[in-house]
Structures are given as C-alpha cells and as structure tokens.
C-alpha cells in the first residue's frame, strides 16, 4: 500500500492548522475503514493522513439544545446501535444501523466518516436528510453549519471545503405525532448494500391523521440522497390512509435523476421497486406517528 505520514493532532485546532497548510496532500482519517479500501485500490495517494482518533471529545451521543440529539463525528455505528438514548428518541437511526454492514464494520466505522465519504449506496445519508440533521464544521476560517439536505453534492463529494473538518452531527428533536421509518431493500438478509433505500419523516396534525410535514428521501438511486417531492406533495395536507399512500407513491418520478450505476441490477429494477418500498416506509411511519 502507498506510503503516507500519519499525523496525530491533539486537538481539532491543530488538525485544522495542519490541514490548511497541506490541503492538497492531506486526507482526514477517522477509523479509516472506507479510506483504507480506496488506498488499497490506489485510487488516490495522500501524503498525509490526519488521524482524528487521538483527539479527545469527538465520540459522544448527547442531548443538545431544545431536545436535539448531538453526535460526535467519531461515534461508531455500534455506539448508535447500542445507545438507549437513540433507541428511545430517534429510533430510525437504530433501525438503519442494525442492518449496516457487520458487527466488525460497526465496531470501527464512524457516523462522521460515513457521512463525509458520501457513498451513493450508504445507509446513513438518507436518514440524516430525512431527519433534517445538520453538520457542524470547522476550519481555520471559522465555524459553519451545513444542513444535510445540502451536504451531499455527488458521489464521494460533499459540501465540505477541502480545509474543513466535520465536528458534530445534530438532529432536531422529533415533535409529537411524528413517525420515522427507514426501509433498506436488499436481496440478501445481511451484508448487503441497499438496492433502494427509503427514509420517511411524517408529521401529523395534533388531532387528525392529516399530514402536516413530510420528507420522503430516497437512497441508493441517485449519486446522493434525494427527496421525492412529487410523493411529498401528494401527502401534504391530506388525510393519510392506505389509498392516499398508494396513490402518492405512484407519483414517484425519476425525471432529472441520474441513476447511479449499480452492477447488481439494471436501472429499471430500481425504478420499479421504488414505489413499493416508498409505500411500505410511509405506512410504517404512519403507524408510528399515530402510536405517538
């Protein structure tokens, strides 16, 4: 494998300084499981790997302002899987991570690393978009916050500037009468990336099962997660029942979506299966919204 210098900053500031000075030749490393695969394949040859793992205070799950959930970027998928806070407050995250990779992958892989990797077939990005999550980032120029809706630009490309580091993931509190669901359509029972992934956030009015707000996010189809706007429009302000859901799912349109090449199946398969998975995910979200 290529040679590199492993840099071990003791703080985010130190990491930002080094990154800023060596931006063309550096890559940020968390656990590095996705990164090492790319290095083994000689897809790029950074001179420096800036190792974030030694920096204290980057691996946590805690409640933030207004009941929001805050995750450190080095939180592992296994941390998410076993967190009682997440199981109780943001169950869709646990639902998604239960079927992510394997125990071995989840013990090392980090939420931050996965999001910054921005792989089209990844499970985490569509869920973060559906939850309205935000990425807090830092560089020598200062701090900024990027909503995940704007974070994923293309496959393996995010809105992070080359000198920026993701330092926190925040998820707003899920209001009452809101149900979220993630369905990952695979052919195998384990160790499979989604053929189609759907993450739904469905908020109902207080008394009636009328849709107040909805996000239907599709993953594993385009190069980045995208919102199925036509489906959402067909649900907003409607009294949600099975037939409304069925009809809304049929509004799914792939116009303007560059379907990412997936060697496991033709484009037509993803297009044909999508409305089915969309229906299932919305129905599950509805049941959860009604149950409170």
């Amino acid at each position, binding site marked *: *494998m*290529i*040679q*590199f*210098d*492993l840099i071990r900053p003791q703080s985010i500031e130190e990491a930002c300084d080094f990154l800023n000075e060596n931006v063309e030749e550096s890559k940020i490393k968390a*656990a*590095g*499981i996705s990164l*090492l*695969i790319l*290095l*083994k394949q000689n897809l790029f040859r950074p001179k420096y*790997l800036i*190792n974030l*793992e030694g920096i204290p205070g980057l691996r946590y799950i805690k409640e933030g302002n207004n009941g929001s959930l805050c995750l450190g970027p080095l939180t592992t998928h*296994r941390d998410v899987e076993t967190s009682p806070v997440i199981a109780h407050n943001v169950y869709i995250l646990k639902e998604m991570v239960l079927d992510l*990779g*394997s*125990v*071995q*992958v989840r*013990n*090392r892989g980090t939420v931050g690393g996965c999001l910054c990797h921005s792989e089209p077939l990844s499970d985490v990005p569509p869920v973060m978009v559906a939850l309205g999550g935000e990425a807090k980032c830092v560089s020598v120029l200062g701090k900024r916050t990027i909503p995940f809706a704007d974070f994923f630009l293309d496959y393996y490309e995010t809105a992070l500037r080359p000198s920026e580091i993701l330092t926190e993931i925040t998820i707003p509190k899920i209001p009452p009468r809101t149900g979220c669901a993630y369905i990952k359509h695979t052919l195998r029972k*384990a*160790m499979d990336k989604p053929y189609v992934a759907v993450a739904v956030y469905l908020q109902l009015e207080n008394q009636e099962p009328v849709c107040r707000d909805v996000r239907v996010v599709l993953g594993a189809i385009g190069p980045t997660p995208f919102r199925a706007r036509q489906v959402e429009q067909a649900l907003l302000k409607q009294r949600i029942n099975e037939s409304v859901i069925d009809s809304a799912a049929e509004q799914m349109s792939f116009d303007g979506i560059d379907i990412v090449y997936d060697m496991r199946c033709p484009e037509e398969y993803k297009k044909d299966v999508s409305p089915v998975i969309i229906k299932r995910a919305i129905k599950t979200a509805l049941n959860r919204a009604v149950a409170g």
Partner: protein
Amino acid sequence: MKESISININGKDYRLEVESNRLLVDVLREDLGLRGTKISCGIGVCGACTVLLDGKAVNSCLVLAVDVAGERITTIEGLALGNQLHPLQEAFVDCGAIQCGFCTPGMILSAKALLDENPQADEFDIRRAIAGNLCRCTGYTKIIEAIKSQSLSE
C-alpha cells in the same frame, strides 16, 4: 514513516517497529508469525481476518497496526491454553462445524465476542453476530449449532 508501538496480543506485550501503512493483519501474520488470522477479501466483508480489539470483533485487514498501539488484541491463537482447547473450539469440533477451516478462526472470535457480551445469546443474536463471517463450505447450520451449544440460553 516507521513508528515504534507497544501492543498486547493474547496477553503478551510486544514492542514493534512498523511503518504507518502496515495493516494489523499483515503485522500479525508476517511480523509475529500468527497465521491463524486469515486474509481473504481485503475489504472488510468476509470476516476471515476477524480479531478482537479490546474484546470487540474487528476486521484486521482494515486496521492500521499503528492505530492499535496500547490496545489488547486477541487472535485465535489466544484461545487455547496449551493443549487445552477453548470450549468454543471444542464445540466447533464436536458439532462438525469445520470443513476447510478457513473461516473458522474469524467465526470463533466473533462467537466469543458475542458470548462474552451476551452469554444468553439466542439463535437470532448468533446469526446477527456472525453475519460478517462468510463460510463457503458448511452452510452455517453446524456453526450456529456449535455456538448455540455454548450459549446459556435455553
């Protein structure tokens, strides 16, 4: 860039000089002669390279050796005590859960990590725990039987 690191492997402390880009699996196999850990896919999907890092199962083909400085590693060689096999190893033998044996070290370590954390693991827990360990020979039935025989669950 060469680094000097200390790692505890199977209860023994080692001081090693390794390049930053060496993978843990290669250091175990080549520098320490511990060839029980196998290399197969190299991309973290087959689990043949599974070792325990502080008791947790990881794919050693995707871990830099320098990243585990100061940590405790358990490889398959660390399970038996002299000639006395670990109960999981005995169970695999008794249940006929080994054919070619290539997946076995990783499989047993994943099972050990599971049972150490959840001694009452049921079949569902077992299947989830070994989902990242592929076996091309056995069809998994006897492997699951062997692990189940070591679980305290009824």
